[in-house]
């Protein structure tokens, strides 16, 4: 079979030889191109994956850091610490008879404590990721068709 192929190649014209060689080279080039593209995309995906993992780890670290600092702040401003500081500054709690009350027109005592928006607040939810990045090609085509007044299948 190999001999037959060799014989056929030897008997072929110069033009035909170049044709076979060209086609083979083209196939080889296409394979190389596809492989390169695959490797390139894979590399980018892997890089992005690692970056996502890094960012997630950073997020967890930051979250824990915020919690830790909040507790630290709580400890530094705890009653015990504040009393110690007040004592060092020779301060003491006022007695009722020592107090002086002055009327301030228009003064309003501090409002209720709000550590978060109220439950019934109208919060405008804006998507962080634009729909262009999340919808499929099919969705996009349907949107275009709908925009042009074409009925959906």
């Amino acid at each position: 079979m190999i001999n037959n192929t060799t014989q056929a190649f030897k008997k072929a014209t110069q033009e035909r030889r170049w044709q076979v060689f060209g086609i083979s080279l083209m196939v080889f080039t296409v394979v190389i191109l596809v492989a390169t593209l695959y490797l390139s995309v894979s590399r980018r995906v892997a890089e992005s994956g690692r970056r996502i993992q890094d960012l997630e780890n950073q997020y967890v670290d930051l979250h824990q850091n915020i919690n830790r600092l909040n507790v630290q702040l709580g400890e530094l401003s705890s009653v015990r610490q504040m009393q110690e500081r007040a004592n060092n500054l020779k301060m003491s709690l006022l007695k009722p008879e020592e107090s002086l009350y002055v009327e301030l027109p228009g003064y309003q005592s501090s409002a209720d404590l709000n550590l978060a928006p109220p439950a019934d607040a109208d919060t405008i939810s804006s998507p962080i990721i634009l729909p262009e990045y999340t919808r499929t090609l099919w969705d996009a085509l349907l949107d275009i068709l709908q925009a042009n007044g074409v009925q959906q299948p």
Partner: protein
Amino acid sequence: MKKIDFESRYHIVFLLLILPAVVFFFKMIALQNSDKTKAVLETSEQYQWVRETILPDRGNIYDSQGRLLAGNTTVYEVGIDLYTIKQPETVANVLSEILDLERSFVYELATYVSPETVIVRYVVVKASASEEEVNRIAAVMADYKTRTYKNNETPLSLAGVAWKTYSQRSYPESDLASNLIGMHYFLDRTTGSGHYGLEEYYDTLLKGSVVTNANAIDPRLVGPQKEPIHGGSLILTIDRDIQAMSEKALDDAIKWSGADGGTILIYNPEDGSILSMATTPRFNLNEYWNFAKILPERRPFNSAIGQTYEPGSVFKVLTMAAALDQGTITPESTFNDLGYYYMGGINITNWDHGAYGLVDMTECMQYSLNTCLAWISDELGPDQFYNYMRSYGLDRNTGIDLAQETHWPLTVPGDSQWYEVTLGTNSYGQGISVTPIQMVMAIGAVANDGKMMLPHVVKATIIDGQQHEVDPVVVGSPIKAETAHTLTGMLVNSLQRESSAALVEGYSLAGKTGTGQIPTVFGYDEHHTNVSFVGWGPAEDPKFLIYIWLEKPAISIWASEVAAPVFSDVASKLVVLMNIPPDSVRLGTGQNQENR
């Protein structure tokens, strides 16, 4: 023999080669689809992913001003990877020294050999190491790597030592309001739950939800990670400064009076919010494992809600309110006190065994006459009396949002333990057991136009980043507003007339002492009492109600001598912390404070 031509031989060779290929092809398909292959594929899938359980943050607890009472800090779990450890001796030496552990314990872990049934790759050396400890380990690790070793010296190595961060419950105020907050068993990371107080009552809200993520080892397979649902947070009605003040006042009072223990409750009768709840003993919540050693046996975690006692004369407020409301008596009604009142075959006497003659109802309260109150209850009748007691909520838990609340069943006519004289003794707070929180809720009706508010500790919750306010709840209206005002006026007068040690200069306060005898298996204890005081103010628009209970004080058995001065001390500090000006300023009736 016929000679086989070239072409036939060629076909035979071709068939001999193609047949195994065909067999291989079909075998390959069969193998691909066999159960064993599927199992192998599934197993290999598992090795591509690492399952990681992410624990949510437990919700924070803030006081009414937004100051942190319970949060989460970062701790480090230090462990050893048994596959990569090279020098168990070095690891044991370094870790035992830095982490303050027994060297033999660390060495045992470092040389741990897995049993045949389970493969152990990682062992925990210390579950919650501090940042400083981990930094020291890292520094030693770096030093070993950069150190120059002589030719024949083996380089030191801490290979295999690893650490991981965890979120852990932390209480920055340590023992402040410990009996109210409760505790989270944080050493048990995965199943640790809240115990006692708020940590138990709101455990479901505070704990959040755990998620388990499958993390791809191959970075190309990294996908979106599920976030754990962090626990909701609580904003309390408790004011940290008022809590600290009342705890100090309680500790000072116990020290001064030689009492066994005590409770100080400060309550806003207008909406039922608890401003402070101080009890003893307290302990550092960051070392919760010590609480069993500190808490005496059979003593509840929070005596304000978990311990019943016979309150004595503070209970007269409720009897008087019932009789006034029912119209059985008026403030001007008189009672001729002969020093005893015969009821159910028994003579009820006064606390000092004295006879006070003709007295009106304000004087009855002023002199705290048992005989007078027994007469009132007799006039009111058992049905009405116990109906009022039920409407005050004394036959059930108040429903405060704290775990482990209790109550003593109310003994009523028809019960085997109820006798005719029980009505008389109940009228002045003996033979009836209540918790301080029950008394606060019931007497709160007198301070709040007859409306009884549900005591609560949580002002708002924060869930999914939104604040949900807790609305005050009216439990009932056991008495009319008019009755409440009349009785408040009577109690203001009675305090002023007796020049009580409970008074605070410049403020009109209503109040009542209570000396309660302590029942034992051999009758009432003759040497010890429970002393109480309930007071509220400013009388015309009460902003606070203070309830004080000291157990078995040593310096005196009388509430007027022990509990009343403590009330005065707490109230005088409270008006400053709550910014309540004196009557003269508030009502604009007296000298301007600016002239002082």
